[in-house]
């Protein structure tokens, strides 16, 4: 049976893992390769390296960080943050990324999704959507949540899929860093609208928040950062918790 995936996100700044609260205020959580190794031993299904400040500071995701993680881990690895064009995507993939995660760039240049899908396959192209509740819909923001994109998350997810995206990484700006739980309604709305996997992100604070997002939220995968960073065995304990509640997990 296909397992739901638990994905750990390493928000990286200047070669160190940090975690932002609503994208601001940064605490150091350690060296990326060491954390990645620990997560792998605990049974994490996938890793995302996100260069959290890349878009604003116009830096490219650090190839050295990606290379150090990819050298010793043989599970899917995605890289995001400031990937603007084919050159940035190629650099990430050559460093060892299996997938690139695009957020700001395809909002201005949607055809980038198609070009990257043609070059690397749809499975390598994740469109990351940062959205917050707005009236009856979900407003998409770019540039690390600072700029309104004048798009609705459901409609943009559909377009991304039609242009060749292989997965959607959906982050609730309202919930990110709050530990108040995933935005299950938003996740379910997007997941029901597309036929590609939706990775829910933003708000994980307890193990039951993951239960909620896999049931009510209809998520195919869930991503979190801080819940895993500061406690031992969190990944293995979370997976055992979910499996016991009937959510299929890969147990290692």
């Amino acid at each position, binding site marked *: 049976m296909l397992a739901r995936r638990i994905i750990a996100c390493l928000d990286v700044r200047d070669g160190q893992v940090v975690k932002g609260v609503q994208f601001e205020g940064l605490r150091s959580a350690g060296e990326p390769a060491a954390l990645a190794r620990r997560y792998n031993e605990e049974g994490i*299904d996938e890793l995302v390296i996100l260069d959290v400040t890349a878009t604003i500071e116009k830096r490219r995701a650090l190839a050295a960080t990606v290379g150090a993680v990819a050298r010793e881990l*043989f599970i899917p690895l995605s890289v995001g943050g400031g990937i603007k064009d084919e050159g940035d995507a190629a650099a990430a993939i050559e460093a060892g990324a299996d997938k690139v995660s695009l957020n700001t760039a395809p909002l201005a240049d949607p055809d980038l999704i198609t070009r990257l899908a043609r070059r690397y*396959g749809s499975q390598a192209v994740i469109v990351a959507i940062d959205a917050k509740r707005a009236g009856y819909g979900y407003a998409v923001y770019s540039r690390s949540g600072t700029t309104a994109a004048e798009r609705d998350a459901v409609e943009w997810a559909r377009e991304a899929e039609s242009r060749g995206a292989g997965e959607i990484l959906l982050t609730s700006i309202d919930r990110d860093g709050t530990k108040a739980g995933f935005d299950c309604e938003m996740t379910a709305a997007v997941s029901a609208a597309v036929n590609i996997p939706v990775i829910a992100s933003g708000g994980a604070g307890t193990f039951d928040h993951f239960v909620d997002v896999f049931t009510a939220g209809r998520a195919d995968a869930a991503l979190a950062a801080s819940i895993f960073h500061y406690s031992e065995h969190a990944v293995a304990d979370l997976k055992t918790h979910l499996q016991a509640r009937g959510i299929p997990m890969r147990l*290692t």
Partner: protein
Amino acid sequence: MTIALVDYGAGNLTSVKKAFLHLGATLDVPATPAGLERAAAVVVPGVGHFSATRTLTPDWHAAIRRGLDAGRPLLGICVGMQWLYEGSTEAPDCPGLGVIPGTCARLTGGVDRLKVPHVGWNTLRFPRATSLLDGLQQDSSVYFTHSFAGPVNGATAAVAEYGEPFAAAVEDGLVMGVQFHPEKSGDTGLQILSNFLRRVADGVAMERG
């Protein structure tokens, strides 16, 4: 003992290379079919659309078949495994190598109308013992990402379920294939690649007598 990786321009070979290098293999990416002659085994990786295998022109087909006749193991990964079949409905005008009977088709999602593509970790069931999957436990998990798959038949070495059963791995003599990504399937995946390398090494030892 050199393993030839066939690069036909589909996706990237980085992860497959890293995994084989991690296991101590020597790799070569030949630019022409003649380059396959130098290798002890051939690996055809690949992601994306079946039509990308069109770059594997008849001279590649012939060289890979000659390799099999000469006792060189062949491993197809993902689209590379689909290519071992006669073809795929994804690109009907594009012939596969045809060393495994049948045609690949799009996953239906089954009665539950599951999402297609099939992405993530799924479990394997082994209908029989094979050299490629030797030492693996029933229900081992491996990482998949694909929309098309090959039919289950006598060559099937592992079956996975996603709305319907499909061939997750094949083995028929020297012909081996995996629909999943062993290079991204943690220790289980490394074990499979290591089994392949051991099979290649056994072949080389036998040849030397």
